[in-house]
């Protein structure tokens, strides 16, 4: 059982890594419209959180949107097609890279409004509580979003109503190019929970097992009806804020980036741990091959898919349609 869970976790981490590398390549090939933000370096935080959830639990997220639904188990093909703006995209070409949503796995929306996903997940938790459905909701947000007032509002309401929600901060140290050290009076985001009666937990976001354990405990607490938890996973973004974005001035040192890439790569750390725990090298290679194949198939599917008809822009605005004025 533990092995199955770890194999699946490793596969999902590799799917995120492979997806992001493929997207980066497609950007350089000029295939990708719009801005793209990758989660390379943050895979253990994402997958550790998602593996603690059931498929019908809810997640919301951020502009750095690809990893979350993949971590929740989404199929790669519709996601990659969305990146290229294709009709077969998971959002039918209306959302793009920053707004992945795949309700088939409980992904209820990534938001390009920083902090925007926080009340969405808190509201989903309200639904779960009102309906007594037993589900929980988890919202991924960054250290940057922790400075949005809406986090404070939602922490407080989740606390007073004991909502089954997990506030999961992927603290990668930088809000775009502003270091957290320059923008946080209290550098530990988790400590902000206490002020609202929400327990805060800090975990090493590069270690799958640590994230999984902390999130599992928070999920159990939420399902018991004991309310929300604020988890802060200290993690690191290996690539630039946005693919192709190069800002002069050096907001972080090459040494720092290199140190994380060589010593704190979550995929490498997890692989080493799995080997140390006795998983066979051949089993790992098999998972790695599988992930690569899924990514390649997704890229081929996305490239072969047609673009939407421009007239489709006028569809799906309303559920109870009204005349669209052109």
């Amino acid at each position, binding site marked *: 059982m533990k092995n199955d869970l770890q194999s699946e976790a490793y596969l999902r981490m590799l799917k995120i890594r492979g997806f992001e590398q493929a997207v980066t390549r497609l950007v350089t090939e000029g295939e990708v419209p719009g801005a793209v933000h990758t989660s390379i370096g943050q895979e253990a935080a994402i997958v550790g959180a998602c593996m603690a959830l059931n498929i019908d639990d809810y997640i919301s997220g951020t502009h750095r949107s690809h990893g979350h639904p993949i971590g929740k188990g989404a199929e790669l093909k519709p996601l990659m097609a969305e990146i290229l703006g294709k009709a077969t995209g998971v959002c039918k070409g209306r959302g793009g890279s920053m707004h992945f949503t795949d309700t088939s796995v409980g992904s209820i929306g990534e938001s390009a409004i920083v902090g925007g996903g926080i009340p969405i997940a808190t509201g989903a938790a309200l639904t779960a509580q009102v309906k007594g459905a037993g589900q929980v909701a988890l919202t991924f947000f960054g250290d940057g979003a922790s400075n949005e007032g809406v986090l404070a509002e939602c922490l407080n*309401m989740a606390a007073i109503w004991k909502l089954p929600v997990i506030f999961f901060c992927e603290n990668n140290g930088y809000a775009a190019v502003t270091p957290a050290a320059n923008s946080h009076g209290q550098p530990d985001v988790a400590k902000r929970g206490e002020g609202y009666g929400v327990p805060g937990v800090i975990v090493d976001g590069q270690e799958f097992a640590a994230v999984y354990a902390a999130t599992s405990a928070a999920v159990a607490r939420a399902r018991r009806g004991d309310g929300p938890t604020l988890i802060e996973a200290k993690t690191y973004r290996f690539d630039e804020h946005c693919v192709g974005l190069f800002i002069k001035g050096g907001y972080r040192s090459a040494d720092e980036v290199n140190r994380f890439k060589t010593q704190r790569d979550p995929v490498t750390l997890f692989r080493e741990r799995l080997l140390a725990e006795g998983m066979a090298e051949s089993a790992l290679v098999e998972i790695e091959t599988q992930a690569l194949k899924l990514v390649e198939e997704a890229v081929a599917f996305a490239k072969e898919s047609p673009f939407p008809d421009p007239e489709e822009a006028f569809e799906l605005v309303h559920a109870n349609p009204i005349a669209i004025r052109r």
Partner: protein
Amino acid sequence: MTDSKTMRMTYLDALGLAQREELEGRDDTIIIGEDIALYAAGGAYGDTDPRRIRSAPISECGFAGMAVGAAITGLRPIVDLTIANFIYLAADPIINQAARLRYMTGGQFKVPVTYRASMWHSQANAAQHSDRPYPMFMNIPGLKVVCPATPEDAKGLLKAAIRDDDPVIVFEDNDLWGKKGDVPLDTEFVVPIGKAKTHREGSDVSIISVSGCLRHALKAADDLAKDGISADVVDLRTLLPLDNDAILGTLAKTGRVVIVDPAHRTMGAAAEIAAIIVEDGFDMLKKPVKRVVTPDVPIPFSPPMEAPLYPNPQKIAAAARELM
């Protein structure tokens, strides 16, 4: 319950009745807002399950956004934002999330959320409590915006908003809260979103009214009738979508139009209505379109400064006479 009876009640009581019927009659509606607990204690929501009544802290952005999350996962939230100016604190989730999530996700969601916002103008509350903010929200594709002007429409439009599968903002005219009218008691009574109502038939001049200006328009029409001028009075009721057929229909009857809108002049609802008339009905116009609106100044506190700023029967009648 189907019931052909009506009861005389205030606009505020009609809103309360609509809300209670929709809360008691289904298990997916919830109400969220400030001070809700007090109203619940007073019996405003009948025997609704207390889990569906959320008395929120003062966190408009947070609970307006939570309502979106609840709506896309299967509830039908009614958000009471109380004073309309507070909608600015909640504007981000209304605009960036509620209005767009269905579209941005390729139709994976419906977003059945209702926002109530009461416009407290002409009550000496100064500029931070006196706005009529609906024009800004008419510019947001994905939303629906209604402005009931009678107790009957207050009930029918609020119920339609709650039952609609898209986000609807109900802008209430607070000046009307205490005004009485006959309200259908049928629990299935709704006023369709997007349909204007003709309150008085006429042939010389059209008065197209927005929100609580209807009562001023009807008074003006009485006054004009004394001079033999026959006014056609139309209350738009819904501002997004606008009832183009009703706008062009009244124009076709009269060829002269006064638009009465309590919002400010620049880019108010009246501006869009005038644009429709000029673009699609220019050949029917006998005279230029007139607007009776609120000037482009913040609303002052002192009553002698505030009162003259808004549309009133005298201004409407004067504008109509200029067209004759």
